[in-house]
């Protein structure tokens, strides 16, 4: 693949700028968070061209942003953030992606690593048996069309009302697990057909459930507020999204947006950036359907949370109450939200597109659960399955500079087939087993694609956002067992 050779100015050790003058039509400059070493990888592909292309979107304010885990996607790069004015700017499905509200949830427990390790195989078998995963697998939840509409409006609350989890869980979710303005009528028959049987399924690709133990606590006081008290404490990460329902919502709306681009005479350098004015019927229809898909994803992660609790209780021979498995938080990393930010000197309503990026609101923000408000919003950053994951919090600097956003994960470095070639002949499960990580996967080749070597080191990604000041590092965990779709 061709190296990107556009102009790039160094702002400081962790910030780089693509000037507006790079391409005629860029409305704002591009800003990339990276250190010099990671920039080398980033320049190996065309991700920065996509950062420049996003700067063409009508109504974009500030800068077209790229997080250090950026890699080449479609339309927006993965790891891209852009804010457009809600009044006269556009909304772009390509700024959210196909897996609407793909996101991460973190649970804390009262268990210690040493209590769980003797049961880890049994536990992973139990989780693998109880949580449907892989391609073309149907879930255990049956919903008809009317019920599916309720899922899309009520999100995680729908799941709790059906007995999946506890009411307390809902307080600890971004948006309370149900975005307002969801329009289930705008979700097509095809999207429903794909989504109904997949509710309560993990999916495939990079989706996973991980049992991990806290290995490092960087800010003990903040960690304690978030429910993390000691090294060795067992935590659970769930990474999944809106399944086929979200993919179809994106596709359906991209087709509408194609026409909208012509109708509203929007000039774009890349078709996959197709968009419509946020206030237009096309823009509002997409936003409503996207919110419906996002709510489906929150219901999905909620149902799986319930099964995780049950599986842990069963494998450990304890009651679920005994385990203390409480939600730390749940974040979306593929989503568009209407938020109030300061543009120039005035508070402005903007549509923040986060595609492979996480909201990271600072201490005191009114959208953070009361219990956490003093420390800032928890940010969950999963790494690859062989290394570690992080718990961060948002900062005031993020609010000022990156629309309250930060990175979302490790970011791919190798293509899936390159990863498979590099891993050829090696038993990934056995390699991980040697590191003390028990893995259960639906697909062996899928495991090779997700090997550590295919990803950037998430520690380096997190270090960049910390040094740039857009996140604080709170805790790191290392995996004990992983379920792969």
């Amino acid at each position: 693949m061709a190296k990107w050779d556009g102009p790039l100015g160094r702002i400081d050790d962790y910030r780089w700028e693509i000037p507006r003058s790079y391409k005629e039509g860029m409305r704002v400059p591009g800003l990339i968070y990276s250190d010099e070493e990671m920039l080398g990888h980033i320049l190996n592909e065309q991700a920065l061209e996509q950062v420049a292309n996003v700067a063409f979107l009508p109504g974009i304010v500030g800068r077209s942003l790229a997080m250090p885990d950026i890699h080449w996607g479609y339309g927006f790069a993965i790891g891209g953030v852009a804010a457009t004015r809600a009044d006269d700017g556009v909304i772009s499905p390509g700024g959210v992606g196909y897996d609407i509200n793909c996101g991460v949830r973190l649970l804390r427990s009262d268990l210690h690593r040493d209590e769980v390790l003797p049961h880890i195989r049994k536990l992973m078998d139990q989780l693998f048996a109880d949580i449907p995963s892989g391609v073309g697998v149907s879930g255990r939840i049956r919903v008809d069309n009317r019920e599916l509409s309720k899922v899309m409006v009520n999100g995680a609350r729908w799941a709790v009302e059906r007995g999946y989890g506890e009411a307390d869980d809902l307080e600890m979710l971004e948006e309370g697990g149900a975005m307002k303005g969801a329009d289930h009528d705008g979700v097509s028959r095809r999207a429903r057909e794909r989504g109904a049987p997949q509710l309560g399924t993990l999916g495939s690709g990079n989706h996973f459930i991980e049992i991990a133990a806290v290995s490092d606590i960087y800010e003990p006081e903040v960690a304690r507020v978030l429910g993390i008290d000691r090294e060795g404490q067992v935590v659970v990460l769930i990474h999944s999204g809106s399944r086929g329902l979200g993919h179809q919502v994106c596709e359906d709306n991209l087709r509408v947006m194609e026409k909208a681009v012509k109708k509203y005479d929007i000039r774009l350098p890349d078709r996959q950036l197709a968009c419509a004015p946020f206030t237009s019927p096309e823009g509002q229809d997409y936003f409503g359907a996207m919110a419906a898909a996002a709510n489906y994803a929150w219901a999905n992660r909620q149902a799986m949370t319930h099964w995780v609790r049950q599986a842990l209780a069963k494998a450990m021979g304890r009651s679920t109450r005994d385990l203390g498995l409480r939600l730390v938080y749940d974040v979306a990393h593929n989503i568009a939200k209407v938020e109030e930010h300061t543009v120039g000197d005035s508070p402005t309503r903007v549509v923040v597109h986060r595609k492979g990026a996480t909201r990271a609101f600072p201490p005191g923000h009114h959208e953070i659960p009361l219990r956490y408000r003093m420390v800032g919003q928890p940010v969950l950053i999963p790494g690859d399955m062989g290394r570690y994951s992080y718990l961060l919090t948002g900062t005031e600097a993020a609010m000022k500079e990156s629309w309250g956003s930060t990175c979302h994960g490790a970011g791919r470095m190798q293509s899936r087939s390159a990863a498979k070639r590099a891993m050829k002949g090696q038993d990934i499960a056995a390699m991980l087993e040697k590191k003390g990580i028990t893995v259960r996967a639906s697909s062996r080749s899928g495991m090779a694609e997700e090997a550590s070597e295919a990803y950037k080191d998430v520690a380096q990604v997190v270090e960049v956002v910390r040094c740039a000041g857009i996140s604080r590092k709170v805790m790191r965990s290392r995996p004990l067992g992983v379920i792969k779709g």
Partner: protein
Amino acid sequence: MENGFQILEHTADVGLMATGSDLKQAFAAAAAGLFSIIAQSRQIETRDCHHIEVKAEDADSLLVGWLNEFIYLFDARHLLFKRFDITEITPTSLVAEAWGEPVDPSRHHIKMGVKAATYHTLKVEREFGGYRLQVLFDV
């Protein structure tokens, strides 16, 4: 290039190049390429016939629409296809009969789920002696 298609490298996604002496052949090769990404094509039998019609704004959208039709049929109805007889094609519409069968986990190895065919780096090009298509899948 085997069977008129080739899988292309991409960091996060999977690309496909397909060729044919005419648009019908090239589109058929692209669909065959898609199912080679999802499953082992040799394991798929042509038991059932499925009638498919796609309409679009232009040839690019037609290709994306054609492939997304199969992604939907696989995701929602668990259908795999192997033979694609395109009976009519214009730059904005096509009619086809696709032959395949429902997924049978005892016989079919499913390799990968595909979320959608995208417009990114999409190409429908005339070249000497036929057509060349390029498409990127979000997986």
